[in-house]
């Protein structure tokens, strides 16, 4: 591998486009059925006050364990789910309150790629028709134009014209994900929210699809919100990363800064839990990562702890953590952390 293959860590190389997507204090609460005698209305706080910005041309990674609200947040960002509170601006327009009709002309600009291509592709339709669907919905052009565009999209994602008339079950997992990506690209979006797009794939196929994401971003100047639980994958694709815990962002920082020196105790524990491959090249120069095994499990988002959501498992928790909820604040080095006692400034 040569030097040019190594992603530039120079801050100047980071995209400095305009803000394409801005989420302000987004919340999504699901009311639960009152159980038995308890009259109190219980609420599951799936997303609880998330604010973030995504700039044109960059990839924002969202990482967290199952149930942390990362998928719900992704759906809120493109308004596939109605927000309980807060607002989302896409390309300068508040999309959180627009009517369905007003939203329709904006939708082509933001698309989703789902985790399970098996479940997100209609088994009774041919691959070509699946990719043509968004073009028909948004009145792309006449039948010939749609056909041309679909063939072009198939080519872009590495499928051949021979695949157009096949049904989803005739494809492998990796190819199915390519169909899902072609469908997302059909309307020429600015923003693609990808929710665990490679987690169902074998490692060798996963690498191929990740490379496709990188190529497409370069070719079409796409902006990605990339949601995943795999910390290696998120590191590979992201310029900046938001770490979520119990519906909140606990840390948001540039990829190098986050992995180099995590500021939030949860980020630190999460990174230390990843079983890294020891191939003899790492031990020489990289610092040996201290392993922090968290005790217990993520609390139920219905009964979130008071104060800091992580305090019940945090090895550094002090009195203040139970009393006051830490806000996500920008530190001197430009990263954002929600912790009373961050590990680095």
């Amino acid at each position, binding site marked *: 591998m040569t030097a040019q293959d190594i992603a530039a860590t120079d801050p100047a190389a980071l995209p400095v486009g305009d803000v394409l997507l801005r989420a302000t204090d987004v919340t999504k609460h699901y009311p639960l059925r009152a159980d038995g005698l308890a009259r109190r209305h219980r609420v599951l706080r799936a997303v609880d006050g998330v604010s973030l910005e995504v700039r044109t041309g960059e990839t924002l990674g969202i990482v967290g364990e199952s149930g942390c609200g990362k998928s719900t947040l992704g759906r809120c960002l493109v308004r596939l789910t109605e927000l309980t509170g807060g607002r989302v601006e896409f390309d300068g327009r508040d999309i959180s309150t627009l009517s369905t009709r007003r939203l329709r002309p904006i939708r082509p600009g933001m698309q989703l790629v789902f985790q399970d291509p098996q479940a997100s592709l209609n088994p009774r339709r041919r691959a070509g028709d699946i990719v043509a669907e968004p073009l028909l919905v948004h009145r792309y052009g006449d039948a010939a134009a749609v056909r041309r565009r679909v063939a072009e999209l198939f080519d872009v994602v590495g499928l051949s014209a021979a695949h157009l008339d096949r049904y989803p079950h005739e494809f492998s997992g990796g190819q199915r994900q390519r169909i899902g990506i072609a469908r997302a690209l059909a309307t020429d979006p600015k923003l693609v929210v990808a929710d665990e797009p490679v987690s169902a794939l074998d490692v060798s196929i996963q690498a191929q699809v990740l490379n496709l994401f990188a190529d497409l971003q370069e070719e079409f100047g796409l902006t990605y919100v990339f949601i995943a639980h795999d*910390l290696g994958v998120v590191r590979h694709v992201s310029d900046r990363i938001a770490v979520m815990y119990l519906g909140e962002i606990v840390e948001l920082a540039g990829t190098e800064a986050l992995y180099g020196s995590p500021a939030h105790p949860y980020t630190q524990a999460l990174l230390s839990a990843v079983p890294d491959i020891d191939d003899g090249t790492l031990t020489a120069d990289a610092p040996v990562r201290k392993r922090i095994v968290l005790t217990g499990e993520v609390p139920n988002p219905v009964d979130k702890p008071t104060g800091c959501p992580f305090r019940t498992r945090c090895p550094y928790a002090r009195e203040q953590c139970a009393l006051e909820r830490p806000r996500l604040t920008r530190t001197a080095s430009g990263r954002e952390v929600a912790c009373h006692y961050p590990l680095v400034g």
Partner: protein
Amino acid sequence: MPDQPLLDVRDLRVSFRTRQGSVTVVDGLSLSVAPGDILGVVGESGSGKSVSMLAVLRLLTNPNVTVSGQVLFRGRDLLSLPDKEMRAIRGREIAMVFQDPMTALTPVYTVGWQIAEQIRAHEPVSRKEANARAVRLLSDVGIPDAASRVNAYPHEFSGGMRQRAVIAMALSCDPSLLIADEPTTALDVTVQAQILDLMRELNTRGSAVVLITHDMGVISQIADRVLVMYGGRAAEEGPRRAVFHGPRHPYTWGLLDSVPRVGGPRLRRLPTIAGMPVAPGSLPEGCAFAPRCRLRHARCEELPVLSAGNADAAHRDACWLPPDQRAALRLTTRTADSEVAS
């Protein structure tokens, strides 16, 4: 007898009779596990890693399945054992943990009842005694407040706790061999770390472990020996350090290189293995990996045998490339990759 392996699988073959004809899923697999060892079996879906372990335990009961070869456990061939004796070994001497703990637990009985049942099936103990042991086991695998949780039903447990309960069940008879099939795949990383610690601890108490996984990181953290499978055959096998620090088979190179890592340099493009994993049923006559291999040559038409290429007799691989040039060849595949990239 330190030299006698606990489990010695020789030339295991598993084939399924399908409408398209006979499909070979495991093709002449040999492996051995020494007492107290952790063997990591790694491979992609369809590589035969799970099926081979199900065959070892004789859990492939479908009449369309044919299993041949030898599975020697403490010198006795499990494949020719009467059902009754096999039942005494399964669960007591060899225990198994599956990927999805919910399918391994019945939802209609309490967790404690299920663990106690397992103990009573293998040992002549009273209900009360079995129950007390269930509590101890749950507490051993790190379930807080085990005395009351023993009466909980599986749905009242979280995913990590269920997997702990299944492991507790597997440990109930102090098995000398534990076969764990992707035990942490469905779990979050922080919980995975806890379960791996638990398996390590159990291993220090004397149980040998066969850990099946697709995650090279997990293998790298826990295994003593590694077996890399591809297309139902062994591609490479050896001590962990040898395999990870000096991998010899091009497929192992691909597996190691294509995983995005949490440390080290960030690559703009990942090295990939071209094509798709070989489908069972379309296994080539020669090397199974040849169709995807960048270093394919005429010799690959012929089936390679697992052999030690250099001084280290414990580190073997099934590849026709000149054994003494592997490190240099690996570098050439990497440069080929970056050419494709640019």
